[in-house]
């Protein structure tokens, strides 16, 4: 090149270089990756997701409602004082059913879709701004969401159904006994209120899966290692997520061959919906439906010890409605 450098050309180059560097820096700042963790809510503590609403002075109670799925759900919430007690107008709500398996409603491996749609409607009637229904399925999720009937029923009731896509997980510090940093389904925890809606089932290892075990569904990553310390990890999760409300579907109960079932011979019609703000008490009652005692489930004692609720059913007022 014989057109030599001159001052103007030099300055132009320097200016262009500066703009480039500034642009790269700005891009870097915008796209900076802070370890992909959620910002800590309280830098001193772990990232507990406390969704509990103020209960006033009425304390905790356990409601057992009998009847068909929709009316039992409505009766149970009514007995707890109505959805308005838990959800303020304009709040965002997450409903977390069990949509784990490629099973239809009669096989009772997933939460009954009619329980979900009833809850969605109640939340919206109470003034909820948005109601999200989500879960991290074990089988292929589109199939589970469709075949469980929950995708259709929840959408028709007005909920936003969110699939557990890979990009929707973020690492959270659960700070538990065995659970540390784990990927968490953000759609399940970014809300003002969280309603856990498990289905009561037999489980080969934990004996019974209900409310607390259902919280596995907010976790991503390699969940298959959790089973090595199942009881501790269940208690850790219940400590991490403290639901506003727990509504257990026991309309149909999988008595054995859980948590997947697959055989109608494994299913018993119980026609109950159990609701409480105490998730430990819900499980303590639920395990009785498949013939277990609360003392058979070590995770109940662990959760009680953490102050998450009571595993002793004699200490919590019980109300049967229909």
């Amino acid at each position: 090149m014989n057109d030599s450098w001159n001052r103007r050309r030099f300055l132009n180059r320097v200016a262009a270089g500066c703009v480039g560097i500034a642009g790269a820096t700005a891009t870097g700042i915008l796209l900076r990756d802070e370890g992909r963790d959620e910002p800590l809510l309280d830098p001193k503590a772990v990232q507990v997701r406390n969704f509990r609403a103020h209960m006033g002075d009425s304390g905790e109670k356990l409601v057992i409602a009998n009847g068909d799925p929709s009316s039992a759900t409505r009766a149970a919430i009514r007995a707890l004082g109505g959805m308005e007690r838990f959800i303020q107008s304009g709040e965002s709500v997450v409903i977390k059913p069990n949509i784990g398996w490629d099973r239809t409603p009669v096989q009772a491996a997933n939460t009954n879709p009619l329980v979900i749609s009833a809850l969605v409607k109640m939340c919206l009637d109470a003034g909820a701004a948005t109601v999200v229904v989500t879960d991290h399925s074990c089988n292929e999720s589109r199939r589970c969401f469709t075949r469980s009937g929950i995708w259709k029923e929840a959408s028709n009731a007005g909920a936003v159904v969110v699939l557990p896509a890979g990009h929707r997980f973020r690492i959270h510090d659960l700070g538990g006994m065995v659970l540390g940093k784990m990927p968490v389904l953000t759609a399940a925890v970014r809300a003002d209120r969280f309603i856990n809606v498990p289905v009561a089932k037999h489980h080969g290892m934990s004996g019974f899966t209900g409310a607390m075990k259902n919280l596995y569904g907010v976790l991503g990553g390699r969940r298959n290692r959790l089973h090595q310390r199942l009881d501790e990890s269940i208690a850790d999760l219940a400590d991490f997520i403290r639901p506003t409300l727990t509504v257990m579907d026991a309309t149909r109960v999988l008595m054995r061959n859980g948590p997947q079932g697959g055989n109608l011979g494994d299913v018993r019609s119980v026609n109950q919906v159990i609701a409480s703000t105490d998730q430990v008490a819900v499980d303590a009652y639920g395990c009785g439906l498949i013939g277990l005692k609360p003392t058979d489930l070590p995770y109940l004692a662990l959760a009680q010890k953490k102050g998450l609720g009571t595993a002793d059913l004699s200490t919590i007022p019980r109300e049967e409605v229909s």
Partner: protein
Amino acid sequence: MATAENTVKVSGTWTRLRWARRVTQSIFLLLFLFLILATAAMTGAGIDAATSGSVPYPVEAFLDIDPLIGLIVALSTGTVPGALIFGLLVLGSAAFLGRGFCGWICPMGTMNHVASQIHQTRHGKARIDRNSPRPYNKIKYVILAGVLVAALFGSAIGGLFDPISLATRGVSLTLLPWLNWIFGGAIDLFAESNIPALQHVSDATYDAVDGVIVYQRGFLVGSGTLISVLFIVVLAANRWIPRFWCRSLCPLGALLGVSGRFGALALHKDHDLCNQCGKCQLDCSGAAAPRPGDRWQRAECDLCMNCVSVCDKGALSFRLAGEKSDEQALPDLKRRTVIAGAVIGAATIPAMRTGGLSSVEGRPDPARIRPPGAVDEKEFIKRCIRCGQCMKICPNNALHPALDEAGIEGLWTPILVPATGYCEPTCTLCSQVCPTAAIRRVSENEKLGKNGARMVSIGTAFFDRGRCLPWAMGTPCTVCEEFCPTSPKAILMKEEEVEVLGRRVKLKVPYLDPSQCNGCGACEYVCPVHDKAAIRVTCSGESRSRDNQLLLGKPARKKERPEHS
């Protein structure tokens, strides 16, 4: 492109017909691509639980109307699967229209056509030269003879060369996995950006393309790179020789060309009007020698209408056959050439069967796990045309094209790879889209052995106790049992004492009941021993095989519990 002003007077009809051909090609290519994207289960907010297991569109339609596939399966099995009857209609149409299918309908032809039009660098004489008949264009007749004789010998290996199968495989197992990877990566990148606006874009994009372009369970294709490379080579060849695949290699094109022997249409050449400008040969897509003075190659012409619409002098026209036309009705083949093809086809199959390159003879490869509903291996190889539809529709990315698991003869036939994905318990999608019934229709009851149906088993799981957490390390684990979909479960947990580091530890350890196992591979997929699972499935005990059985007695019928009242 033609200069419309001078040609419209003499060739208005032909120009319109050429546009009709272009529109038809576009419609069929779009339809083809749509059907590939639609090769998925019906899922979504509007879908009932009961209908979610079905496929909404006849996604295998293009394979059904392919006469070569129909002919291969007819020759190899002695039967014609119902859907393939449509292929005979197309073959019938060839008697009138010759290779019109190639020029107007075939999606592989259209893709080649488009590829050959991109960035044309040759003009004038050089281009005319490229579009003139060549001796190597006869290779396709040799391939056709080989494919058909191989079918007679009981092998549908010809599916590797079938253009519809090639296009389906190429798009489904090459283009879509790439798109999945690129879109998935972009969605993840945006989601991780910490910029709310980008995160919303990412969420909205995901919801729009989930199950169509991005797949939650991923879309990896074992040996897919080889398929990609060959598909790209086919498309890239157009750069040097336009429609090289169609002209020189395509056995379906050869079949339709030969069938058009007594075609109703013929290219009429008026020598008096011709000034030998050579425009007609400039864009001849079949290299069929339309120029007056040369003999029109009937079996090469795909009726693209380029020659007749560019002729300024009106020297060329398609008319009903029977009028005087200067044509070569059948390809100028030496008997020796055809016999050579037949001999290659005839020799290949015994060579592979006796030389250890086939899955039909000898002991099965343990990894040759076929999809549920696959017919017995010998019959399977007679039918499977390796189109890849089953692999595209598998919601768990469990089915992959075999590389050597089924021998060279079974190249790209489907196998289930549990380490990548397992067979979803109630899913029957692959059996619904198989065009040749290599995978026969199975019901949900058969999948799980319910309601008196005999359970379809694709293999058996075996524990590797040296790697299993409870057995080898005294660490509690139950994931395989949890995921086992049969009822009663094929994996049972029993409390036992095991010795770990010299200590006796009491815990639940897993056992397998082979009579209840359907080989779905869920246990292997979810095993926390991530690299090489502590429980692995092989094709042993697959219910389609009489020989590959380990248990004495009838194949398992599920024990069922009475229903509760």
